[in-house]
């Protein structure tokens, strides 16, 4: 009898504790707004131009965020969700365009333009400096005024 009571006092708290924990565990499977927006900010509204999905205020965007939430609850990864949106609405929904076809230009042209522009500037500066030095070296020293020539001659004799 005493043993049974002792067992009851052990089982009951464990059972009550489980009742407290299990609902919380069920709640954590529901994606949070932060989780939804972390994916939504990498997607653009397919209708409104240049508006990320996490800040788009339209009803349609709310539906798409709800779709993200549902897919997260189903256990889909970010890549799978993005792929789904691409299949449904085209690659333009991605904040970062995929590096396929002519999209490569987006990744290559800006740094290339920067490098070429910097190189061109550097060469221009060097050419200017070389031209200035050459000009100074090749300028003939000619007295424009005979008085100046006599003055220089006098200074050389005295100095």
């Amino acid at each position, binding site marked *: 009898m005493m043993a049974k009571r002792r067992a009851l006092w052990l089982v009951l708290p464990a059972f009550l504790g489980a009742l407290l924990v299990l609902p919380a565990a069920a709640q954590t499977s529901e994606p949070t707004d932060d989780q939804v927006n972390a994916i939504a900010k990498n997607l653009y509204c*397919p*209708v409104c131009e240049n508006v990320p999905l996490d800040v788009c205020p*339209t*009803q*349609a965007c709310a*539906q*798409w965020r*709800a*779709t993200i939430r549902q897919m997260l609850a189903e256990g889909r990864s970010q890549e799978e969700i993005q792929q789904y949106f*691409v*299949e*449904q*609405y*085209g*690659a*333009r929904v991605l904040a970062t365009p995929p590096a396929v076809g*002519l999209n490569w*230009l987006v990744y290559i*042209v800006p740094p290339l333009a920067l490098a*070429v522009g910097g190189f061109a500037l550097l060469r221009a500066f060097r050419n200017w400096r070389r031209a200035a030095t*050459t000009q100074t*070296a*090749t*300028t*003939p*020293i*000619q007295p424009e005024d005979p008085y100046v020539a006599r003055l220089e001659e006098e200074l050389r004799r005295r100095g």
Partner: protein
Amino acid sequence: MTEEAPLSSTPASNRPRWGAIAVWVVLFAILGLVGVGLVRSQQGPIGVGAHVPLFSLQTFEGETINVADLRGQVVVINFWASWCQPCEEEAAELEQAYQEFRDQGVVFLGVNYVDTRPEAQAYLERFGITYPNGPDLGTRISQAFRIRGVPETYIVSPEGVLVDVRIGPYVSLAEIRAAIGAPWGNRSDG
């Protein structure tokens, strides 16, 4: 006392500066691409008289409809979305027109533009639309037609030529009848 000017350096060789040429070629190529993109973005939707782009539409029921297979019939292609308020203004009239013309060989197709499936299907149910509707996956169809928004309706002749374009909602059933009924037959009179 004059210093003799040194001999000037020999002129640069006459060989072409391939680096500079390459830069200019690349620059003009990129400008050309940008120009083509700008021109394309300024194009409006495809116009009357053009051959309609061929596409396949997978309906919400899982059926696949190829526009190429509809040659010989008048086809009404309506772009819509559940979030589109003006689309609601013509939804019921389009269904009425479909019921009126379906026995005269006129095919109605609804292309659902950037929408979510549950909301799209709720919209169809709300307005009792029974003609085939399907999502525009990847917005390929809307891009082929170069639509600017929804609703837009394109009417295709039996020869596959675009004969009417409606930007915005139809205001009445009579307008839809007039668009379908002219000019290639007396379909509206049966």
